[in-house]
């Protein structure tokens, strides 16, 4: 899996002498918000140190997330998130490797807001699932803002919730992605 990610990063960033290097955008400070709205409890975690790379020519898109970088309001929530549900010591990372459909229609030299569909594989808790979600790509003065909001079913990723706390964790959690990417110049 690690080799696959490195190879994808290699392709996304085109370090093999690509003449299109100016079309790569990266950030190490993308934000991912996890929100569970269950009948008896609302749980929110935010990670502000997420790696994201976008190839504006091919539409390749990759996110790399460290689970232990999610911060929660309550210490107990953070402990449960890492130890009981995500099992962060065993599965420290989540990744998304995918592609933006119709990237050709976006002019990255011109300011504009574009609705897009992103398809790819989300790997979390050791489980890889294909996903297809709506997102927005906004070009602002040479920078790119990528946002998306979608839901995932935690059972799809083999995340089990003990019956004692069943009402406290939603079966589907909301994921909000917000990445402000800058042109990568090597």
């Amino acid at each position, binding site marked *: 899996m*690690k080799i696959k*990610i*490195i190879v994808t*990063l*290699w392709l996304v*960033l085109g*370090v093999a002498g690509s003449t299109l290097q100016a079309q790569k955008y*990266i950030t*190490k*400070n993308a*934000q991912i918000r996890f929100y569970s709205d269950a009948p008896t409890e609302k749980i929110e975690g935010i990670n*502000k*140190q997420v*790696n994201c*790379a976008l190839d504006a020519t091919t539409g390749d898109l990759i996110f*790399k*997330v*460290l*689970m*232990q*970088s999610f*911060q929660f309001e*309550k*210490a*107990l929530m*953070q402990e449960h998130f*890492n130890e009981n549900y995500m099992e*962060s*010591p065993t599965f*420290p*990372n989540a990744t998304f490797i995918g592609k933006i459909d119709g990237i050709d229609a976006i002019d990255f030299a011109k300011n504009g807001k574009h609705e897009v569909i992103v398809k790819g594989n989300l790997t979390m808790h050791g489980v890889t699932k294909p996903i297809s979600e709506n997102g927005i790509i906004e070009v602002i003065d040479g920078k790119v803002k990528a946002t998306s909001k979608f839901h995932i079913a935690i059972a799809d990723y083999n995340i089990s919730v003990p019956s004692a706390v069943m009402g406290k964790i939603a079966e589907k959690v909301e994921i909000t992605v917000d990445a402000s990417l800058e042109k*990568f110049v*090597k």
Partner: protein
Amino acid sequence: MKKWMKVFAILFILGVVGAVAGYVFIYNKPHPSYEKLKADYTIQAGELYREFVADAKSASEKYNGKMLQIEGVLSVTEVSDSISIAYFVLEEGMFGNQGVRISMIPEYANDLSKEPIGNQTKIKGLCAGFNDTDVILEHGSLAKK
């Protein structure tokens, strides 16, 4: 008062006290004061980075979730969405700079902004892991000089 009523009253009071204590001390327990936690390891930034690059799984098992005191030459400081980040850059890679990145506790943002770039710096933080480009630490605080 009858004996069974006394027992019931005592159990009821113990139950209420237990529930309140559980809510206050367990459910609502505060995050630790990370800056006051003792470092589990004191290590040079370069040494830590090389350990993760050489064997991420083994280094993750050793360092993730541990308080580390990092020593090294401070290369970059960044402010992103109100988070201050200290960066020990150790090599150039696929994402540009690679090394050890530490997001600071907000109270230490001002101190970090005054820290001269290129100076030998000691920063303590909680290790979150390695994302193939950087070792990430959270809740950073500058060690007292």
